[in-house]
């Protein structure tokens, strides 16, 4: 039955080459921890992606309850934390995932760096990876404000004050982020929410797609 459904679809859209490109490729011996235990360092990239998936899924569930306005943001997080079934775990995963993803990203970056895996012909993929790192830091910065507790509010205020001190564009930059030249308030929260939930994830997905297409195209770097 399943085979017939598959064949029916494959007849029409020729799906086999598509999944073949993604799934059917070789894993060389030197990256396989089953053969060399030290090859576990090659897992860091995959685990980073795993945490990113956790972040996306838990974030999608959090937005079911979260309300991005200054009256209700904290209340909704408090409600989530105390009343909603399992929401403490979901929010915990998102909170800790934000830290763990930075740690895994750092480990993955260090693995690639110390192995010199970014050398020709993989320069572009390294740069895409560093951009992913920047996007992640941006996600961390904007996500920190969303619970709208004291910690979030005052850290963001400091962050915006630092942005303001950038020469020439500082004040424009602060206004762009905060929605106002002086107030950190309702506008700031909605802007950070939009950046955290739409702008940066959009950039992240695009960069991840390029990162994965490039690695599939070039293959993993050879042994040292």
């Amino acid at each position, binding site marked *: 039955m399943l085979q017939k459904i598959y064949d029916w679809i494959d007849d*029409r859209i*020729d799906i086999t080459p598509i999944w*073949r490109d993604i799934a*059917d490729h*070789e*894993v*060389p*011996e030197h990256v396989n921890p089953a*053969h060399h235990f030290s090859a576990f360092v090659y*897992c860091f990239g*995959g*685990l980073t992606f*795993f*945490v990113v998936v956790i972040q996306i899924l838990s974030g999608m569930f959090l937005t079911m309850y979260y309300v991005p306005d200054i009256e209700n943001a*904290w*209340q909704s997080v*408090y409600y989530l*934390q105390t009343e909603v079934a399992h929401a*403490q*775990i979901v*929010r*915990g*995963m998102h*909170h*800790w*995932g*934000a*830290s763990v993803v*930075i740690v895994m990203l750092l480990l993955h970056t260090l693995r690639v*760096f*110390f192995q*010199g*895996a970014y*050398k*020709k012909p993989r*320069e572009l993929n*390294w*740069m895409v990876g*560093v951009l992913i790192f920047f996007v992640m*830091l941006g996600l*961390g*910065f904007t996500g*920190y404000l969303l*619970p*709208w*507790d*004291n*910690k979030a*509010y*005052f*850290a963001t*205020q*400091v*962050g915006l004050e*630092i942005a303001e*001190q*950038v*020469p020439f564009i500082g004040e424009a930059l602060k206004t762009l982020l905060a929605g106002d030249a002086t107030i950190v308030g309702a506008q700031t929260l909605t802007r950070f929410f939009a950046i955290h939930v739409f702008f940066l994830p959009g950039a992240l997905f695009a960069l991840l797609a390029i990162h994965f297409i490039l690695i599939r195209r070039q293959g993993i*770097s050879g042994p*040292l």
Partner: protein
Amino acid sequence: MHKGKGMKFVGDSRISAEKTSKIPKDYSEYPGRTEAFWPNFLLKEWLAGAVFLVGFLCLVLAHPSPLEGMADPTDAAYIPLPDWYFLFLYELLKYQFASGDWIILGILVIPGIAFGALLIAPFLDNGPGRRPRQRPVAVGMMLLALVSCIWLTYTSAAHVDWETRAEQNKPIPPGESVVDQDHPGFAAYENSCLSCHGGELEGGAGPALVGTEHTKEEIMDIAVNGIGAMPADQFQGTDEELEQLADFIIETSEAAGE
């Protein structure tokens, strides 16, 4: 996409009518013990992922994510602190050469050089050798940056008393004030204690009184004689008022605990 004469297509589409093989490639001609990603390696990777997930969930269950009290822009006493992975940048700005007149150095030049170098690392370190020994400059710079970041993060975090911070900024349940302002002890609390211990006994300059483990007698003693960093003679009034005050604190604390 295949092109050419004699090709058969499905309907008027560009899908080839000739079937491609669904059997995965055989990787035996590759060097070493190469194996197929699908499905052999993916199953093992799945296992590593599962172990990682269990560890991650243990972390999540052991440490519920923190939530402080609702943002209060008028709280001038609050000491801001960024998330841990920004602490090194935050700490950098405390150095003389990276603050005040030199703030541009701290917020743009130093981080700019560091992250810029990271971004274009393949072009700076463009020799053919991949082993760390063959590129001492690149590896040395990275180690230096790494040690600096760890050191800055450590010095920044070491001064913070995380537990006291969390204790002082506990969230107050919304909507329901536990403070009974008609209580005979409230007036004494308002006059003597509120400025440091907060309007909801949630703490401030002093610790939270909600959930206090002191007995009534101890509270009466502390109000008069002080404790730890709290000076003596905070309460000045009659013994009857003192007793009402202690009653008020204990009753409010119990009401909040329910």
